[in-house]
């Protein structure tokens, strides 16, 4: 589960990671109040207005603005809230912004140089251990840094038996060429950040940039946080941070039925049992000249009720021109699934797209007979390649 920047920062703050002071606002009026309050508590003369959506690259799309007076705070907030923010990481049509974070400006002038770094904590799948990845080049797309200057990316792997050691945190600070108070603050920053990551069952805490301010304080200026869905049961406080408005409405509805659905942009809907077969089915749709409209894994127990719910979800997408059902019956009997499809067809009015059904495995032959004799507009197949051909035919009609 992805968190908003302001939510990620609230977790960081709890663990003693310094973040710029910030207040969430949902209107220009609230933004002005927030700006005044931030001035009162931090003395900040400027403010940053930051759109809160689940996507990176917000600055590029005009979703992050530096306001030099309260009038600008009001103006920028008014402009950003309600806009469809388009960034390299959003869908092409962008994401609607409904709230902004008004934040203290930490690029204030002072005795030492301001510097920007990159620090993230994540799982190293190769070793099965967590690692801290960091770079003295901050505030830029880290993949671009990795491409151009791979020697500027460092990692510190954490032994799960002993946790992050002091020398490792110091090595981070040394490699970032810090000294004095900045060095000490960075060591504490790294240790607190790692603790926040571990305690919240996160799979990613990416801070880009980490700022060394002109008074040697270290700040998490941004926070991209992903929490392990499988661990949410032990973090009810984080689970309730889920923002349904950030998710596709069809996906939200599918999750209510406990269906594993991901909306895509194609024209052929699909319903499959098992995640690997579901992905393979999407790939096959593409090879037959279509484009998958979704990923949908109905799970190991594809009974009649789930099949019907699956159809209802797929049909909510107006782009769907055909539906491919691909079930490999194991413990699940194909004839039962076929009956489920027939029931769903009868229960849902006006299914007016062709349905191609491929049932293989337990009782596949019986299932095909059931479907062929049902009188419904269902085209059935048993072999995978036949299903692909039928999809292609349906699209070219």
């Amino acid at each position, binding site marked *: 589960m992805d968190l908003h920047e302001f939510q990620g920062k609230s977790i960081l703050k709890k663990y003693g990671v310094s973040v710029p002071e910030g207040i969430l606002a949902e209107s220009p009026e609230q933004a002005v109040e927030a700006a005044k309050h931030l001035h009162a508590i931090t003395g900040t003369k400027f403010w940053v207005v930051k759109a809160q959506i689940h996507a990176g690259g917000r600055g590029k799309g005009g979703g992050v603005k530096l306001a030099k007076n309260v009038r600008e705070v009001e103006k920028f907030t008014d402009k950003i809230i309600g806009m469809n923010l388009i960034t390299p990481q959003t869908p092409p049509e962008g994401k609607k912004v409904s709230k902004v974070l008004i934040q203290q400006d930490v690029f204030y002038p002072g005795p030492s140089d301001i510097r920007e770094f990159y620090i993230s904590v994540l799982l190293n799948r190769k070793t099965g*251990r967590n690692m801290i990845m960091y770079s003295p080049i901050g505030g830029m797309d880290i993949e671009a840094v990795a491409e151009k200057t791979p020697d500027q990316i460092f990692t510190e792997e954490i032994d799960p038996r002993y946790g992050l050691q002091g020398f490792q945190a110091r090595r981070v600070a040394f490699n970032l060429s810090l000294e004095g108070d900045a060095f000490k603050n960075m060591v504490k920053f790294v240790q607190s950040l790692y603790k926040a990551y571990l305690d919240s069952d996160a799979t990613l805490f990416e801070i880009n940039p980490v700022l060394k301010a002109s008074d040697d304080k270290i700040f998490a200026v941004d926070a991209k946080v992903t929490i392990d869905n499988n*661990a949410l049961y032990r973090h009810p406080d984080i689970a309730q941070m889920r923002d349904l408005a950030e998710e596709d409405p069809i996906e939200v509805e599918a999750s209510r039925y406990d269906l594993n659905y*991901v909306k895509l942009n194609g024209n052929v809907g699909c319903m499959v049992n*098992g995640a690997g077969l579901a992905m393979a089915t999407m*790939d096959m749709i593409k090879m037959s000249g279509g484009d998958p409209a979704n990923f949908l894994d109905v799970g190991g127990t594809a009974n009649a009720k789930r099949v019907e719910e699956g159809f209802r979800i797929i049909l909510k997408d107006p782009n769907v021109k055909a539906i491919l059902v691909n079930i490999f019956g194991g413990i699940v009997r194909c004839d039962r699934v076929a009956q489920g499809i027939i029931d769903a067809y009868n229960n849902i009015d006006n299914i007016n797209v062709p349905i191609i059904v491929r049932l293989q495995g337990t009782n596949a032959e019986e299932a095909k007979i059931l479907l062929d004799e049902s009188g419904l507009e269902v085209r059935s197949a048993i072999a995978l390649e036949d299903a692909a051909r039928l999809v292609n035919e349906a699209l070219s009609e």
Partner: protein
Amino acid sequence: MSVLVDKHSKVIVQGFTGNEGAFHSSQMIVYGTNIVGGVTPGKGGQTHLNRPVFNTVADAVKEVGADVSVIFVPPAFAADAIMEAADAGIKLIVCITEGIPTKDMIIVKEYLKDKNSRLIGPNCPGIITPGEAKIGIMPGFIHSPGCVGIISRSGTLTYEAVDQLTKAGLGQTTAIGIGGDPIIGTTIKEALELFMKDPKTKGIVMIGEIGGTMEAEAAHYYKANCTKPVVGFIAGATAPKGRTMGHAGAIIGGKDDTAEAKKQIMRECGIHVVDSPADIGRKMAELLNA
């Protein structure tokens, strides 16, 4: 011959008396798997499916000589169950459970380092040596004894490959579902090594998906060490970046873990990659009959 399991494997079930555990245990028994008992803490001394129930894995090892354990314990307790099995000296631990937190699996992976146990899974269909032992949730009847080893990160996609190989008359030595999570016990490369050493295995099917670097690692190993033909398939060519596709481990993070990148590395290393899952059986038949 086969790898890891055969008719002599003495199998216990952790989570024996729960819904899932009980259902699949009876299916495994019907298949002919040598299920020698089960473990449900607090129910030790009872009998279930005509087999003894033990309080601990250690008791099951001591009393009935169990050497394989299959785990159907709910996600919150599954990591603990794996470590208990390893502590009791179980040689092969097959964890079916889906949804174990990654943080728990990091601990498990570390715990297993100095134990004598191999873990398969979690979040997998299990392992089967056709005609001898079915340890997991796969439909037994689609398998047939034969000469192809299968390694797969997915469940139903494995069944697809199995079915094609059975229909092609090739059959399987052993099929291993290694699991769809970011951290799993046995990697593709390790499974590949096992099949390379098995004299009866003539060819290997390797089914991967987006996310992680396991396929690339296996491909490099293959290039340096392997002689038997391998047919590969990678699911997720059409998956969008940054979205989890059902399996917790199936997510594209960077350019190296896309389906395209993996297929390319596999091809460069001499693996016969098919673009359609429908071609797996046909391609293997072509290679073995050539």
